[in-house]
């Protein structure tokens, strides 16, 4: 560890135990510490207890036992408000912004400067925020309405919120999951700035590359226990991966050469409106052949979702055509792993096995057309649960009780085992840990080897580079670049994503 006296430790979590269900500790006697001026990465699989631990530090949960020391003094947090008072703040993975508010309103909410009668002193607040912007070089327009802003900017608002509250200890929960490489770079600059000013930064992440790039130390959690506390410059991604999973990860998935000649999906000069009635897709044409994985990169909100929805028949087309080979045979429907699994992928009040056959209940295996064959359904689920390692291993478990990662696995399992020629996938590994991601990647490749055509939408560029046979970049409803994954890199894709570059029209 560092040569620092105990007094200078800003955060100390001592012997934290937290259990949500009897017999299983989400945090099992966890010790954690971080220093001012340090970026400390907290890594581990889904369900390893990272979020639980940070929620305890942030006052969202209360530990069953154990102590929290902030700057050496014991602290009791009953709510986030208590934590904020002691300078602990969190940037959540899902941003906590009021969409209709201006950037400034979002920043000051809950901690407003006022005149008499509680009238807000906007001038004074604004001045404060402007100074913060300056000293940490964070650039946002304070009068913009927050809802329509890019995720990178929304994240800056979240960081400013913490700074405005004088947070000295800042927790960031997977901050780069939805950022472009350029935005990520900017975020890292800001984090370095914060670190230099003496803040304690705790970074929850799945991406080992990031851990190695910017953190000073790493704490690894596995199944609720700490399996390692390391100095970043003395470790490697292999060592970390081993500590996270408890075994070494199988080497890179091997990509096969692109598939056959038969055209499965043909999209021709497509125009689609978004929910607000303006153009989301502005003239797109693409062809996917059997056995091909067609990757689509882009900053979210550039038409990717509308495209996926249109192909799956969930959205009206205003102009153009979509042709799918063999679609007349209704048993060969499209498989779809949606981005918003809660809205489209699952029914959370249903059991796991019901969710595993959702939309497939008329298949011969599962019913005779009228009555469900519960025995068959159960057998099918047991096999799937085993094969996809869905936890808990109980086909009667309610879907809402499953963790996000396991829900995602269930959706993937249902759609991947479906008899279809075309699979439309959005963000298949968002929020999944290394092992689960590897598994999903392998499954995607295997299915493509069987000849399925796959449309893969993702904002994780390394994923796209790894899996795709072709990558198209969408910007403003158009495909602005078609790239060969073998000869491009994340930075180049990023330039297309932000509209800096274009190799079409």
């Amino acid at each position, binding site marked *: 560890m560092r040569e620092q006296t105990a007094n200078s430790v800003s955060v100390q979590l001592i012997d934290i135990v937290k259990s949500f269900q009897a017999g299983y500790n989400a945090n099992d006697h966890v010790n954690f510490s971080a220093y001012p001026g340090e970026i400390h990465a907290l890594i581990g699989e889904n369900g390893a207890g990272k979020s639980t631990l940070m929620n305890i530090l942030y006052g969202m949960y209360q530990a069953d036992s154990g102590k929290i020391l902030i700057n050496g003094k014991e602290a009791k947090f009953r709510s986030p408000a208590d934590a*904020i008072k002691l300078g602990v703040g969190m940037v959540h993975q899902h941003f*906590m912004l009021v969409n209709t508010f201006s950037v400034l309103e979002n920043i000051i909410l809950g901690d*407003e400067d006022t005149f008499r009668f509680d009238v807000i002193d906007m001038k004074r607040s604004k001045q404060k925020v402007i100074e913060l912007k300056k000293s940490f070089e964070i650039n946002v327009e304070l009068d913009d309405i927050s809802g329509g802003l890019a995720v990178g900017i929304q994240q800056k608002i979240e960081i400013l919120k913490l700074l405005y509250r004088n947070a000295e200890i800042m927790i960031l929960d997977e901050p780069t999951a939805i950022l472009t490489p350029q935005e990520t770079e900017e975020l890292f600059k800001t984090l370095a700035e914060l670190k230099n000013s003496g803040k304690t930064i705790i970074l929850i992440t799945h991406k080992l590359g990031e851990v190695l790039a910017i953190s000073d130390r790493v704490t690894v959690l596995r199944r609720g226990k700490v399996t390692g506390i390391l100095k970043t410059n003395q470790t490697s991604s292999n060592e970390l991966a081993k500590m996270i999973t408890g075994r070494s990860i199988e080497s890179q998935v091997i990509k096969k050469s692109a598939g056959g000649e038969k055209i499965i999906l043909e999209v021709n000069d497509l125009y689609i409106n978004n929910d607000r009635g303006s153009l989301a897709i502005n003239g797109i044409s693409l062809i996917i052949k059997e056995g091909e994985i067609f990757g689509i990169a882009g900053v979210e909100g550039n038409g990717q979702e509308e495209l996926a929805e249109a192909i799956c028949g969930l959205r009206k087309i205003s102009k153009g055509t979509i042709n799918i080979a063999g679609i007349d045979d209704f048993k060969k429907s499209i498989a779809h792993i949606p981005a918003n699994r809660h809205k489209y992928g699952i029914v959370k009040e249903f059991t796991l096995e019901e969710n595993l056959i959702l939309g497939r209940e008329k298949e011969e295996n599962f019913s005779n057309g009228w009555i469900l064959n519960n025995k068959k359904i159960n057998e099918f689920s047991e096999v799937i649960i085993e094969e996809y390692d869905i936890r808990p291993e109980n086909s009667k478990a309610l879907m809402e009780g499953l963790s996000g990662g396991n829900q995602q696995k269930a959706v993937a399992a249902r759609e991947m085992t479906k008899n279809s020629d075309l699979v439309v996938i959005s963000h298949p590994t968002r929020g999944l840990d290394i092992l689960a991601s590897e598994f999903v990647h392998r499954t995607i490749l295997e299915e493509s080897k069987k000849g399925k055509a796959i449309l893969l939408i993702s904002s994780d560029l390394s994923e796209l580079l790894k899996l795709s046979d072709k990558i198209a970049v969408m910007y403003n409803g158009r495909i602005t670049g078609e790239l060969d994954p073998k000869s491009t890199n994340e930075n180049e894709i990023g330039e297309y994503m932000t509209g800096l570059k274009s190799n079409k029209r």
Partner: protein
Amino acid sequence: MQEILTAAFVLQTFRISIPYLLPSLGAVYSEKGGVVNIALEGMLLSGAFAAIIGIYYTGSVLTGIVCSLLAGIIVSILHGLITITFKANQIVSGIALNIFAFGITKFFCKLIFGSSSNSPRVIGLESWGLPFNPFLLICVLILIITVFAINRTKFGLRLKAVGQNPEAADSLGISVSKMRYMGVIISGALAGLGGAWLALDQHSFTDGMSAGRGYIALAAMIIGKWKPTGAALACLLFGLAESFTLQFQSSGVPTQFIQMLPYLLTIIVLAGFIGKATPPAADGIPYEKKD
């Protein structure tokens, strides 16, 4: 046309708008905070009955008004308990409270005055001997305060936050329930006050005398796009329609037609013909902390 646009007609329009305006402004508070308040009708009716009781026993109009405020607040606290604390469906709670208010006012009317349909005549605002209608003044003041409170104060900002994204507000240490209770209780007080006006104007209580005004007030707030000034203008529009009804009672235009106008307007607005009316994002959704 000339005879229509007399000062008396304008004044009548304003007077008629009062029992719409007060609950409608109340609804702005409630709904900005994320609680649909269809119980306005019951709050209005309870307020009217309580005002009569207060005046009947004390002979003081002021006491009557205070009683109406209290009655509105009590019903609103019930609505808050059901929807905020126990997280039940807000529409169901509202309708249940309306039916409850209708029944209980009738019951006590019978018990106290020996008739379930109306109370004896009591004194009204004329006993104050003012040269103007104090309720009109109150309405204007409340409108100004509301515009200011919603747009410029800490309270307004937090109330809106809780109605738009309660999770975000919670994460910043703002108590979602507290803000929502405040919104609902203010709406109850204003609706109760509206009830006081109804009773004072008529000098008595009649069963079901709110006669759907609470629903129209809610519709006005929707037409006004959840904004205080918008709601106020919509209420004036409905007041105008009703004023015409009175004017044309003998002229052959079926009164039912004009009475239908507010509802028709509401449907047109909700269908999106007059711009888009977007409610607060979390309006109508009970807030449950995740764990």
